[in-house]
């Protein structure tokens, strides 16, 4: 675990913790709500991977863009979307981020520059490259972070996207969330190159692999990388190694991983580890931690109440958004 003192203001350090706990508890609640039948469709939980979204987004400006895939709740929450509106979207309610039209796999929050969750593996990658092109076109000091999984690097869109991003020197940070499985297929059964960060080498994009279970390491790496990108050094690639504690989706029986493997990863739990660091370094004590947990439990319960009490979208809207007016 990285040393954390002298790195960020105390308040910021605590904020990282809060955000990770928010995502964890939000996802646990989702699982409950799914089993209760309030949430439907395919629902992919982010539990275990919280340090990636939180560490990465904390290093960005509010105006920076992020693009996600279908495991997108954590990204939206990290970028500042309201937990109530995300929950309402999962419930398919009119008060949801996308008024109930999107669902779990298709969150979007224009105000927060959360540029969408896409359910086609690799589908978000060219879109992120296009956002990078737009940033350069307008000569803005911004970056676009593109999150995708280890499975997505085998799609053509990934290769076409990386090539163009480098060719045109676009301000895109590619973040590969390597949780070692794409559905039931492990990386070594799907990728000719097991070290995924090396994929970027063929496009001459600077790349490295880091511990995605360590929020400070994520934050530090993204901080320095994003600074380089803002100075015009073009796209970068970071492989963040992590693990999803839950099945691929709520519909997956999850029979392809061993309990031993799961235990090894859970011992490195990003939230527990970070909490211990904060305590050891005297930044927070257990009482304050429990206060935070309590506060977040309340927030999540409020989110559920909000979602439950919100109306369904009106049937009159069925054709409303097919075309822009």
């Amino acid at each position, binding site marked *: 675990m990285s040393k954390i003192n002298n790195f960020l203001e105390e308040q910021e350090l605590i904020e990282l913790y809060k955000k990770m706990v928010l995502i964890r508890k939000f996802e646990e609640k989702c699982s409950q709500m799914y089993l209760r039948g309030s949430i439907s469709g*395919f629902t992919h939980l982010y539990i275990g991977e919280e340090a990636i979204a939180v560490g990465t987004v904390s290093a960005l400006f509010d105006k920076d863009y992020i693009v996600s895939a279908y495991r997108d709740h954590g990204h939206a929450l990290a970028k500042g979307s309201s937990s109530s509106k995300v929950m309402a979207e999962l419930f398919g309610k009119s008060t949801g981020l996308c008024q109930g039209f999107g669902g779990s796999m298709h969150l979007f929050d224009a105000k927060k520059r959360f540029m969408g969750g896409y359910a086609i593996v690799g589908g978000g990658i060219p879109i992120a490259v296009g956002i990078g092109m737009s940033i350069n076109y307008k000569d803005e000091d911004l970056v676009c972070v593109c999150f995708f999984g280890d499975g997505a690097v085998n799609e053509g869109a990934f290769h076409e996207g990386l090539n163009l991003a480098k060719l045109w020197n676009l301000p895109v940070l590619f973040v590969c969330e390597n949780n070692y499985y794409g559905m039931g297929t492990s990386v070594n059964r799907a990728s000719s190159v097991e070290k995924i960060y090396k994929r970027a080498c063929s496009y001459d994009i600077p790349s490295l692999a880091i511990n995605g279970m360590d929020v400070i390491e994520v934050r530090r790496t993204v901080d320095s990388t994003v600074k380089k990108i803002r100075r015009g050094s073009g796209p970068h690639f970071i492989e963040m190694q992590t693990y999803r504690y839950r099945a691929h989706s709520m519909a997956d029986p999850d029979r392809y991983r061993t309990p031993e493997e799961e235990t090894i990863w859970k011992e490195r739990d990003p939230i527990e580890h970070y909490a211990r660091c904060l305590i050891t370094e005297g930044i927070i004590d257990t009482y304050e931690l429990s206060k935070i947990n309590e506060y977040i439990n309340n927030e999540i319960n409020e989110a559920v109440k909000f979602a439950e009490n919100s109306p369904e979208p009106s049937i009159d809207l069925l054709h409303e958004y097919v075309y822009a007016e």
Partner: protein
Amino acid sequence: MTELSYRDALNLALKEEMDRDPEIMILGEEVAFYQGTYKVTRGLYAQYGENRVKDTPISEEMIVGAAIGAAMSGLRPIAEIMTINFTLLAMDQIVNHAAKIHYMFGGQVKIPLVIRTPQGAGNQLGAQHSQHLEAYFFHCPGIRVVAPSSPADAKGLLKSAIRDDNPVLFIEDQNLYNTKGEVPYYDYIVPLGIANIVKTGDDITIISYSKSIQDCLKAAKILENYDINAEIIDLRCLNPLDTTSIFQSVKKTGLAIIVNEAWKTGSVASEISSLITENCFEYLEAPVLRICAQDVPMPYNKVLEKASLPDIETIVDSVLDMLKIEKTKKT
């Protein structure tokens, strides 16, 4: 005869064909180790080994392209694309390559390739995972399109598709996998291009395929309360299309509706409607009607999703409307 689910009927067809012909092999995402996303390939990896049942990376364009290459060089590959939504990533290989090669090379080479893929809506999977795309392939010459509605047809048609020397897009309905029915256990073959009259009647012809057949049957039951005797044609196969059965029936009843769960505009229903109008015009007592999904991307919300799809009630109401019969509580 044995009772099997649609899923197990497909599984059995795969096994029987693989036993018969060693050149048949399967490739796709999660088909081997995981036993298939919808478990259609369950047990095949254990039985036939990794040379004949191959897990691929998430690379749809490559899956279909590699299957084409294999088909051109002596194998009879069966490619599984996890859902029809992802065939869009392989569209170049399907439309620009598989559908063209036999023709553009003057008949020198055949492409005995099956692409199995499920489709279906109604499970709140959202806009990118709920599409019915059969019309995209139906539109394209050079590729067969099959869409079984029952376990027996699933078995018989898959075996025909595998034996056919053309590329075949074999569309399974993901909402039918658990439905059960009697399936002949012998080497049961349903030839491509022959529709199934699932119910005979004299008053109106209802043409459909895939899961909608069940809705049509239920609607027909309700219509009996109004003394309407509907004939229901299950196309089973969209290319080749059994126009003979369609025209015969429409000439008998004088009325036709076509039901499909895909978008209305440019749908299979639209094409069949044109064919009927061109070929049976003087027999028609009313304009041909299409009952389809609304032309919208699928909304996630369950109420909106339901409103966008055709159902039993829409079929009943449309028929009553067509026959100018007032709806009573008889339903």
